[in-house]
């Protein structure tokens, strides 16, 4: 093209014409594709299941006997003297390794309060003379709804924290002037016979917007 003589107008015109017609065709094709929406948009989102409502519940770990009393529920299962005799302390039986033998009637209780059988005696906490009460090691007698004091008689630092609200869940109003707050009792979270927090299934993990591609297999030198 560079070595054409200057007056090659007629030689150049068909080339320009070709280009311009070509452009018209290209634009018309684009207009068609756009206008008819032939190249649509595909939604990249993958389905994510809604979380089970159980994970949203603010219920405590367990309900205590005191809760049942407060809610005035049927306590016939918990009537100690339906089976035991008043005034006669129940006998505890131990096996050869000093482990407590749980009687068949109380088989739902699993003893796990302290390792190596440290807290193996029912009457460390229960009052053998009045099974409807609790007792501390130093002889104080407590009602069931005052059970935190019993726990605190051994677990001092935790009890101090609990009193202020630093241990265990507090719900309601942080601004005590504006409304009530609820501090849970120890037994609302801890089973007094086996206090360690039980494991549970966690709620679902995060779903990133763009799922990570599969990892490369580790190289021999990794």
């Amino acid at each position: 093209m560079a070595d054409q003589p200057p007056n090659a107008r007629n030689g150049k015109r068909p080339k320009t014409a070709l280009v311009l017609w070509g452009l018209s065709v290209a634009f018309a094709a684009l207009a068609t594709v756009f206008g008819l929406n032939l190249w649509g948009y595909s939604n990249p989102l993958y389905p994510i299941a809604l979380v089970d409502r159980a994970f949203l519940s603010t219920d405590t770990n367990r309900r205590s006997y005191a809760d049942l009393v407060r809610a005035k529920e049927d306590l016939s299962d918990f009537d100690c003297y339906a089976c035991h005799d008043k005034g006669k302390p129940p006998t505890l039986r131990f096996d050869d390794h000093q482990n407590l033998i749980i009687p068949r009637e109380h088989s739902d209780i699993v003893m796990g309060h302290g390792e190596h059988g440290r807290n193996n005696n029912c009457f460390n906490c229960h009052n053998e003379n009045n099974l409807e009460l609790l007792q501390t090691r130093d002889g104080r007698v407590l009602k069931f709804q005052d059970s935190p004091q019993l726990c605190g008689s051994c677990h001092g630092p935790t009890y101090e924290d609990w009193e202020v609200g630093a241990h265990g869940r507090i719900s309601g109003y942080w601004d005590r002037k504006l409304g009530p707050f609820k501090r849970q009792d120890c037994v609302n979270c801890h089973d007094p016979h086996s206090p360690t927090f039980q494991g549970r299934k966690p709620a679902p993990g995060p779903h990133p917007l763009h799922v990570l591609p599969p990892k490369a297999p580790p190289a021999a030198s990794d």
Partner: protein
Amino acid sequence: MPPLDSFSTQSEPAPAAGMTRRSFLRTSAVLTTGLAALATSLRPLLELDDYTSVERFMQKYYKEMTPDDMARVLKRIENEVQKQYGIRPHVRDLRPMDGVQFVYALNLTRCIGCRKCVHACVAENNQSRNPEIQYIRVLRMPHGSLDIEKAVHDYAPESVPEKGHFYMPVQCQQCKNPPCVKVCPVHATWQETDGITVIDYDWCIGCRYCEAACPYWARHFNFTQPSIPKDRLNPEMAYLGNRPRRQGVMEKCHFCIQRTRAGRYPACVEVCPAGARKFGNVLDPTSEVAYILRTKRVFIQLKEELGTSPRFFYYFDV
């Protein structure tokens, strides 16, 4: 070879004397098809549904609104939510209380990694379910190390807590020296007097600079229109808090401003089954957070060396 001056032998210019009918047709063909292509290229905009309105476009900055302006805006938001979800919400503009500095303390001995806080937050704050936005991210850390690079986010065992690990939930630390506030080009995010760093969702331009600046990955962006199931909408809303957001704006944990400024605990505190989360006004010496900061001996402020001065204190009991 000398380059030819091509313009002295060029073709015709635009409509002028000396044009043939063929060249005129040719030129108009190009121009017409070109303009048609230009017009049709914008066809997707036909699907633009409620992108903005004159009122929303002209809406003032939060700090410049008069009470009347705010009342009008709140009413408009209520109408919009009712139209979209069929539920009439109650939207308020709650102001910070005097003499309050919120502080959050998280007991790492107690957290079991159950992620209930994550989902309670999502439910309380009307976050998008798909794409999923979650303000809280629970990290599973190996026993003995606080190295974030060893964190695992997507643990899914049959039972938590897992032996040999501890769990650290991370959300907006409401820093006293927040990098996100510093970098926002339009002041769409700022820290209020009670310590909460808030976002004016109607002012944010969506540049995502704050998301790049946050060292805790606490800020989240609406990459598309958020989707909230109608039956899970929380109708108790606040302007700076959990009212539904739009496509293209940032959002993050705001300490459940609609609850905390009314004196209540945030949703994550209420739901934690282990009582690991503690929240309150640190200026009140009788609050549990003041007690914790007084009596516990070791606190971890994440990435303390960055000088952000977070309001979040992680600690261990045992």
